[in-house]
């Protein structure tokens, strides 16, 4: 599904912040991406999203080499990926419902065709009664769940979540993790970037990708 081969990344003429990164993400797999703050977790997720170009090495996404992609192909590949940002990135002028429906709207689908789907998902993440509310009045946990719902609405083959439990209390963090595991059981490969060891301990079966000294260490 995702394969990195000796990927390196540097910004401008600066030092390499990621070095010789090689790993593979299998379909329906579950892994944590961890490491100290500033180790490059978010950068690695952005590389997987093809939001950054590696300065060396190869990235293969869904069977396509990143440097062979034609204009427009990146968009099609991104539609197979759900992403949860650390800072949620909800659009403040759209309601919770509209934010969650956004990935379907940008695909040109009619609102009537996805309304029930969006409502059902919002209820599933516990935001059934907050659908018509704008993000500025949502709590941190509600925003997080809205961001997760937005990532899940397209039934992605791969979910990338950047510190999804960073802004919530331990109780909600456990609920969110359950949500991710349920999603994984339904067939989605999940990558959760976190430095929360307690969270990772709750899910022993997951593979751990640990970033340190600009390199990636894998613990199956």
């Amino acid at each position, binding site marked *: 599904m995702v394969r990195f081969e000796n990927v390196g990344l540097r910004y401008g003429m600066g030092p390499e912040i990621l070095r010789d990164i090689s790993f593979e993400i299998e379909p329906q797999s579950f892994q944590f991406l961890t490491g100290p703050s500033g180790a490059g977790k978010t950068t690695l997720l952005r590389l997987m*999203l093809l*939001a950054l170009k590696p300065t060396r090495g190869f990235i293969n996404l869904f069977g396509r080499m990143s440097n062979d992609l034609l204009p427009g192909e990146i968009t099609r590949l991104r*539609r197979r990926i759900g992403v949860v940002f650390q800072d949620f*990135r909800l659009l403040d002028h759209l309601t919770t419902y509209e934010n969650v429906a956004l990935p379907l709207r*940008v695909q040109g689908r009619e609102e009537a065709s996805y*309304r029930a789907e969006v*409502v059902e998902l919002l209820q599933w993440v516990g935001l059934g009664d907050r*659908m018509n509310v704008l993000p500025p009045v949502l709590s941190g946990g509600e925003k997080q769940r809205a961001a997760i719902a937005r990532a899940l609405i397209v039934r992605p083959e791969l979910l990338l979540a950047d510190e999804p439990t960073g802004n919530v209390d331990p109780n909600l963090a456990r609920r969110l993790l359950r949500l991710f595991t349920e999603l994984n059981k339904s067939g989605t490969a999940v990558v959760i970037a976190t430095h929360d060891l307690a969270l990772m301990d709750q899910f022993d079966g997951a593979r751990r990708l640990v970033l340190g000294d600009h390199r990636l260490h894998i613990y199956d």
Partner: protein
Amino acid sequence: MIERKTRRQTKADGNRPVISVRKRIDLVPSDTTAGRALVTVISIMTFLAAITAGCAIFISDAADEWQSQISRELTIQIKPNDPKLIEEQVAKVVQLAQDTPGMIEIRAYSQNESEKMLEPWLGAGVDLSELSIPRMIAVKLDQTRRPDLKAFRLQLNSLMPNAQLDDHRQWIDRLAAMARTLVWVAVFVLLLVITAMALAVAFATRGAMAGSKQIIDVLHFVGAEDRFIAAQFQKIFLRLGLKGGILGGLLAVVLFAASAAVSHFWNLSPGGDQLEAMFGSFSLGLKGYVIVFLIAASIALLTGYMSRLVVFRHLSGLE
């Protein structure tokens, strides 16, 4: 709690929550200070463009009117080489004009009338009998069947070498050249105004994009194509362009309508007909109003197109 106005609501049944579904809201916020400022800029530019075009139409119409008035008649001047024969010479020329197809209403000015013409310069009561005053013959031309002036000039020269034909061609040519120059100046000013407006729209689009960076990022990450994002900006800017275009166009139409009303009022006053003869009626007519409408519509379309172009360039730069 911030709740938005709803357009329709789904039915609540049992435990199902009531959801409010708004009309599709713009993904790029449009009601911003920069947006309002751009509407003002576009309306001013549309107003200036419409005024420039209107003035060009006024000048062109007035010049056409002068030309058609002047070219409707010609003058024949006979310099008296022998005062005793002058009446006979005038009669011969009048006869020649009458025999020429396309020449209607031939009027020969008498000696007295010719002398009176000089009164404004020489004063009344001056004895002009000693002066050899040229005699004038005014000829009105048939607009539907113009005479062959070249042939007439040759005939006149052979019949009366001391007669001179003035078909006002020199004036007509000068007027036409002046009108053409002014129209080209107006076109140039119009192009400057449109260029300035296009640049203002480009800067405003860049500003809007800088302010919407997070929105563009999110749209990219949720799988929006560049043309979808560009269409969002284009929609907003087309709407701003339409608002500005309509406002500026309406202001111009009001100004032209007011100038036509004032011109009509002047025409009722003494000297009004001279003003109208000099500067036209100050009335745009249907053609003028259609042109103002086209300018407003073109500016709105240009605004939308420019924003799309700028967004596409910006997005391709991101890739």
